[in-house]
């Protein structure tokens, strides 16, 4: 089941895969969070990754831009193996935008400077050129008028849209979204999803870890359902969300789509212990006071 071929994938030639993940494994200490993940994302494809808390979705995303160092397997981005120690990870990352659940805007910089600082450092653009790019992206997310504000002066939804503009200002080929609406008040979710929808319609390759089933169903070309560190099921959203084949997918979707539903034959979910274990390992790996171990190596 882990290497289930998807209908969308067979329709696109294998040559234009932007991301190719093969036998990816990731452990935090003794807890294996990802087990032999194999999948590929094609140019222009929008892939939504869904699954219960503690299924390894976020870790999968973070392995793609090496915020987490994979324990085994390979991750090819535009044909470059990011797990290879010789790979220039900064260059690969500069072509890969990432949007975080907690926005992570640079709190000491204005909205405009948030969008220009990396352009100037990484792309060596001069200030006026970087500002021009930044302003056009801020316009795109509907925040051109807040360019001089500081992040703390914005609502969560606005901050997340700035974070998207900041990532877009690097002109990436691929965007990674790690639960971009999970930290937002419900009434602010719509604006962020609208920006993402528009990005998808413009042909951006996107990998979105999300709990927004309606968004996944509407925008995704393919949905990946993960549980317990493996891909349980993947395919067109109408199939994975509309007509799930696997018992675990059905149970998860029932819980998400109808929280009041009680599954009569599942008092205790068999995977719950493992999920709790994975979640705990993920959190403790990210919660340590220093930068995570693999980031630390590259720090100074």
């Amino acid at each position, binding site marked *: 089941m882990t290497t289930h071929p998807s209908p969308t994938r067979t329709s696109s030639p294998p040559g234009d895969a932007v991301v190719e993940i093969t036998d990816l494994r990731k452990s935090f200490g003794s807890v294996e969070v990802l087990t032999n993940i194999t999948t590929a994302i094609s140019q222009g494809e929008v892939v939504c990754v869904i699954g219960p808390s503690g299924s390894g979705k976020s870790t999968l995303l973070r392995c793609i831009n090496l915020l987490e160092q994979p324990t085994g397997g390979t991750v090819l981005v535009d044909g470059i193996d990011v797990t290879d120690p010789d790979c220039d990870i900064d260059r690969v990352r500069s072509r890969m*935008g*990432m949007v975080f659940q907690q926005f*992570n805007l640079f709190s000491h910089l204005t909205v405009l400077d948030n969008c220009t600082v990396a352009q100037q450092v990484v792309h060596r653009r001069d200030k006026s050129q970087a500002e021009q790019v930044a302003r056009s992206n801020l316009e795109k997310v509907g925040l051109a008028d807040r360019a001089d504000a500081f992040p703390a002066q914005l609502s969560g939804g606005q901050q997340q849209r700035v974070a998207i503009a900041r990532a877009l200002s690097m002109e990436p080929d691929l965007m990674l979204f790690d639960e971009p609406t999970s930290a937002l008040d419900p009434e602010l979710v719509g604006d962020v999803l609208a920006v993402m929808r528009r990005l998808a319609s413009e042909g951006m390759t996107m990998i979105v870890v999300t709990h927004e089933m309606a968004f996944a169903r509407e925008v995704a070309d393919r949905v990946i359902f993960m549980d317990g560190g493996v891909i349980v099921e993947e395919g067109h959203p109408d199939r994975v969300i509309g007509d799930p084949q696997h018992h675990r997918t059905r149970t998860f979707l029932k819980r998400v789509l109808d929280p009041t539903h009680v599954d009569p034959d599942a008092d205790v979910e068999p995977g719950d212990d493992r999920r709790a274990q994975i979640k705990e390992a993920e959190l403790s790996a990210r919660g340590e006071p*220093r930068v995570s171990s693999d980031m630390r190596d*590259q720090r100074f």
Partner: protein
Amino acid sequence: MTSPAAAGRVRRLSPRKRAQRVRWVQYAVLVVAVVVLVSVADLPQIQKVFFRGDLIVDTLTQGLGRALFNTVAYALGAFVLGLVLGTILALMRLSSVGPYRWIATVYIEFFRGLPAIIVLLAFGLLPLAFPGLEIPFGIYGTVWSALGIVAAAYMAETIRAGIQAVPKGQVEAARSLGMPAGAATRKIVLPQAFRIVTPPLTNELILVVKDSSLAYIIGLSSTSFDLTKYGRDLANTNANLTPLVIAGLCYLLITLPLTFAVRRMEAKTARAR
């Protein structure tokens, strides 16, 4: 004989009334203390010892400006050196290279544990111990290095705490945009860290200003006198405390505006936090 209930009502004050009486007592004690002090004190004598007019004039005119300048120069130089060195030490403490961490830890523990005056003495004697060695900027360089090296040990720990207080997501965001580790540290982490540690660093600056009074120990010539040495010499010559009082007030003249300016700055940058 009144009934117990009635007695309770008469004797027991309400908490608010009691608080009011306690306040009255406190005021009364204060007034009595002041009256006693004033009646006991020999005011003309106090004025003669602490605020003698001719000595005030002498203190102000015989080189106070120079001494004030020297104190500021000693403190500022030592602080800047300490800040640079402290930042380097803080980064070393957080380095992934073990030996850097050990060196920084040993340095910090060593210089935090030593009295500043010993370090000053050592630096004063260095040219004697190593013939031919000359510390640049003469006496200023000696004071700067000695006090700066001690201040760096304290500041390193403060700055390290500030760096660690910057949320990890900030580094992750910077790195995910392709910024190399060094650029992420310089452009994202350190500016936020320094914002966090501005209040404790102000404290450190004030401590350095006061520590500069130890400079006398290395033997200063009259042009390099700091405020304390200047005031002490005049006080000794005249067997009067007035010059010391003036010198003391000058320290406040340095530190109070400093505290005020930093508070203003903090309020201004608060919106960016």
